[in-house]
């Protein structure tokens, strides 16, 4: 049973998160340790394993990039090794520029405005790429799956940038 079947939902990139969350809670109740208080050790162990499995499934389907990756792997798409270097020069040049812009935020005249501008640019580019990937995933042929895979790798660079933005925001406004 794959993760989508586990939650009784359609295997698609578009997931109703509220529905997913309520199905998750219902499923977790069926394997709650309280229910197995008087069960055998083996039954208790199986319940714990099931609970962990349900949790993995939920965490995967909840996050868009993990969900996309899961869908593509389920389709048997040959995902390039995570450690494999990415060599799209113009994309990487742009990524370097974004990182340089982020670095300059600290020394900007108006730090708030500079940070907001970076966040605006990042979220609009992230959204654009996500929508492109979503369309490619739903198209579901070997060319579109490959293209979706490529965009997923690009989105991971944005994900990392967003972590950096959050870190900077904390550092700037924490004190």
């Amino acid at each position, binding site marked *: 049973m794959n993760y989508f079947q586990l939650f009784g939902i359609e295997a698609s990139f578009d997931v109703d998160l509220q529905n997913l969350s309520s199905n998750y809670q219902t499923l977790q109740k069926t394997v709650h340790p309280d229910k197995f208080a008087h069960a055998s050790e083996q039954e208790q162990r199986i319940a714990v394993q099931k609970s962990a499995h349900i949790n993995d499934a939920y965490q995967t389907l909840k996050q868009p990039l993990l969900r996309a990756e899961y869908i593509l792997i389920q389709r048997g798409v040959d995902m390039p090794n995570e*450690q494999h*270097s990415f060599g799209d020069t113009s994309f990487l040049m742009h990524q370097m520029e974004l990182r340089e812009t982020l670095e300059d935020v600290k020394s900007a005249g108006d730090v708030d405005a500079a940070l907001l501008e970076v966040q605006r640019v990042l979220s609009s580019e992230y959204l654009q790429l996500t929508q492109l990937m979503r369309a490619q995933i739903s198209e579901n042929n070997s060319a579109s799956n490959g293209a979706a895979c490529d965009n997923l790798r690009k989105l991971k*660079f944005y994900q990392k940038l967003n972590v950096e933005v959050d870190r900077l925001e904390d550092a700037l406004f924490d004190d």
Partner: protein
Amino acid sequence: MAYSEKVLDHYENPRNVGSMDKNDPSVATGMVGAPACGDVMKLQLKISKDGIIEDAKFKTYGCGSAIASSSLVTEWVKGKSIEEAGKIKNTDIAEELALPPVKIHCSILAEDAIKAAIEDYKSKQGK
């Protein structure tokens, strides 16, 4: 996880940080990235007419090991021919910096950056 002394040295005193004009025909630019950790690495080599690397600069956004790997590479390639530089292996980098297994991909990234720069140089020369 503790970094080795050599990684810390390169991280705290990175060699040859900077940029060159990527449109200069004698400048080769290698851009590589690692989606797993979001690291982005740029290696630039200034290459003489007889194919000797006269200068090298890098700019890396990434962890200490990625910065150290690219910093080390700029030191190593200077004075080498592009053929010799192309033979630098990630295992040499990892060994020199005593990188732990989880950081081997940083040395792979640095090796790939050299290769990408050499490719860029060849395509520029071919024009």
